[in-house]
């Protein structure tokens, strides 16, 4: 494993470890050097009709900046052009950011570059859910100050959702599972309407990179920063 991106980890209630990057520089990289390195391999899920494509076991989410993601394989991986095409099609179907990505085919590799597009307008399942079962995969920082969130889980099975809010934009957010955590990519204001008849509203503030547990059934999140802001939700029944 190669990991040169400086990260600040937060252990949340002993359930999850959130880590956000600090002062990243162009050229820093996170790389798995072998598919077998990954944790939770016994939970890996293959795409129904293609065993060269799996559900991703990593949880990297770009918050700002520009990155390049590269999958590289060896002959033993037996990845064909048809597999790569299928993978690209899945990215186009399930990743809202894909239309902003620049794809590049290499010899035994495929990569894409992406500048944070802030294009996810409603709560959506995490992007990059599917990936190639290639020997190596890497994420390279292409721009100083790029921000990455990495979430590690002790117990497998957390669902990831995310949304991008423009400055002053709000979104209704519902708690659908027993455990629900919210990570705020920037400053936000959270309004929680009371269930009482008096219609009182409780206001909370979240700092940049703060994590809060959503215990109310519903809240409204407003981006109070001057930049687009990604909010990440982790939930589990």
């Amino acid at each position, binding site marked *: *494993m190669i*990991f040169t991106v400086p990260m600040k*980890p*937060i*252990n*949340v*209630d*002993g359930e*999850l*470890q959130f880590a956000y990057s600090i002062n990243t520089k162009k050229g820093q990289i996170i790389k798995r*050097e*072998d598919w*077998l*390195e*990954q*944790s939770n391999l016994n939970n890996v899920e293959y795409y129904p009709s293609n065993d060269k494509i799996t559900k991703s076991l990593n949880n990297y989410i770009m918050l700002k900046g520009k990155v390049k993601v590269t999958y590289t394989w060896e002959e033993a991986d037996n990845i064909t052009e048809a597999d790569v095409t299928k993978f690209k099609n899945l990215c186009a179907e399930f990743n809202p950011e894909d239309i902003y990505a620049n794809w590049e085919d290499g010899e035994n590799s495929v990569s894409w570059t992406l500048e944070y597009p802030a294009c996810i307008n409603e709560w959506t399942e995490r992007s990059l859910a599917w990936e190639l079962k290639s020997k190596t995969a890497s994420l390279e920082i292409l721009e100083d100050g790029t921000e990455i969130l990495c979430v*590690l*889980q*002790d117990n497998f099975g957390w669902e990831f959702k995310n949304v991008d809010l423009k400055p002053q934009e709000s979104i209704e957010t519902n708690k659908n599972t027993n455990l629900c*955590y*919210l990570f705020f990519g920037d400053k936000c204001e*959270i309004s*929680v309407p009371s269930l009482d008849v008096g219609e009182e509203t*409780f206001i*909370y503030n979240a700092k940049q990179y*703060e*994590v*809060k*547990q*959503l*215990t*109310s059934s519903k*809240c409204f999140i407003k981006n109070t920063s001057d930049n687009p802001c990604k909010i990440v939700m982790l939930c589990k029944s």
Partner: protein
Amino acid sequence: MSEENNKKINPNPLTEEVVKEIQEVDKDFVDPYKPNPKLEKQKVGKI
């Protein structure tokens, strides 16, 4: 991991088994693919 220990164990690929081998000679080594159990728990605010 110290340079001396690094010579005894090849950390590439860094599989779970290799992590266990490293931790036998270097108890402070943390598996980068898993939450660090030594990290202090942070209580988060509820909303």
